[in-house]
């Protein structure tokens, strides 16, 4: 990916900056003074108990959720309530969801071609070539003319990854991409994500796959109650977590593996 992404900003400047972000759902505070800075090509794994605000955090980055205080800047563009700015940011930020969210009335190929044609203004030929390239890359090129319902969960999630990549984003957000999958399909999706990481994609992954975190993450971020409680390289985080909540969480997670 690094070959196709052009960096208008210097590489020193972080790609994503979140400063003192606060988010409420009514009276419930989902994010409390979240500060986070992600450099180009950095891989972040976000973990924490359910309801800790991990998903909310990444959904604020492409403004699927609005936030009430603080600032978020993506590739030099401030994500405010300004629709123009939001549109610009969404073009640069790809997202993969827990429930795939492929469009069921379109073929795999059409799923991948829609946004480049509608948003980037690509020609049909261009969009198809791009789509086929990325579908090949997630090893699903031979299924291009099938409908999502004809594919397994793992295949659908790989299509979802390809669909996001077709917009040639600078950042990929993963919101528990393997949580809805049968166990035997988790690996094919994680392998795809590992491949993406090795190609230099900037990634923020909400996941409980600690093996993936160990192998890929530059930093593991632990959240609870809407706060970032700990931030460390995976070796440090898994070997000697500092915060008692992180210790407790790791104990629970690793007991299952």
């Amino acid at each position, binding site marked *: 990916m690094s070959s196709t992404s052009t960096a208008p900003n210097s590489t020193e400047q972080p790609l994503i900056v979140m400063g003192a972000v606060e988010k409420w759902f009514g009276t419930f505070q989902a994010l409390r003074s979240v500060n986070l800075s992600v450099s180009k090509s950095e891989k972040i794994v976000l973990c924490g108990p359910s309801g800790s605000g991990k998903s909310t955090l990444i959904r604020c980055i492409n403004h699927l959720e609005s936030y009430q205080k603080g600032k978020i800047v993506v590739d030099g563009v401030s994500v405010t309530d300004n629709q123009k700015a939001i549109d610009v940011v969404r073009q640069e930020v790809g*997202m993969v*969801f827990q429930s795939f969210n492929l*469009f069921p009335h379109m073929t795999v190929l059409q799923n991948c071609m829609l946004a480049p044609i*509608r948003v980037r203004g690509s020609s049909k030929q261009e969009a198809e070539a791009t789509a086929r390239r990325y579908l090949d890359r997630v090893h699903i090129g031979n299924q291009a003319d099938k409908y999502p319902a004809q594919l397994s969960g793992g295949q659908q999630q790989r299509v979802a990854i390809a669909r996001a990549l077709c917009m040639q984003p600078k950042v990929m957000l993963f919101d528990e991409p393997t949580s809805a999958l049968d166990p035997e399909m988790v690996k094919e999706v994680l392998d795809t994500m590992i491949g993406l990481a090795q190609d230099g994609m900037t990634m923020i992954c909400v996941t409980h796959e600690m093996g993936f975190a160990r192998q890929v993450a530059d930093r593991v971020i632990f959240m609870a109650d809407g706060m970032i409680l700990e931030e460390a390289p995976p070796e440090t985080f898994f070997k000697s977590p500092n915060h008692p909540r992180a210790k407790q969480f790791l104990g629970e997670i690793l007991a299952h593996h």
Partner: protein
Amino acid sequence: MIRDFTSNEFFAIVAGMQATIMLSLMAFFGGGLGGLAIALLRTAKLPWLRRTASIFIDFFQGTPLLMQLFLVYYGLPAFGYHVNIWVAAGLGLTLNASAFLGEIWRGGIQSVPRGQSEAATALGLGYMSRMRDVVLPQALRLSLAPTVGFLVQLIKGTSLAAVIGFVELSRSAQIVSSTTYKPLLAYGLAGACYFVLCFPLSRASAALERRLAARS
């Protein structure tokens, strides 16, 4: 003078059926456009748009179609618009169909999983594309059975246009009945015509519903 029930009378009723079909198509396509607008307004982000659509729906669902036809037929001239009977009947039925189809399709739009429009949003698609390419095709598919079901109601509803002087199937049967004094034959034939139009649609609606249920 009492006339015989000849082929002339038969064809008068068939001509009435043609008018019924034409009026139904007008109302269905007009109501389709209006209903789409209402459905989009009902699911809009801005509360006042939703509210406006709501008032429209409440009015047309909360009053009899007969009253609505009277209001259009006598109301338009009061505002200085003298329109012919096709426009009056067509407009009245279109407004009514817009409200009902709007409500059916709103339900369809809201039954498309939220993840669909979220995924479209995350890909950078704007409202227009999100609706046209992603949400509406799925919503209309979900609403197909009730939409066809409503078309049956609409066809039968066109009979009320007779009261503002529109000669459709019911009115032509009434005319034939009073000239031949054979009401059973005239209305029986008209009833058979309605049945021929509506029954296949009802069956189609039921089949569509079964197909949708089997798929999900």
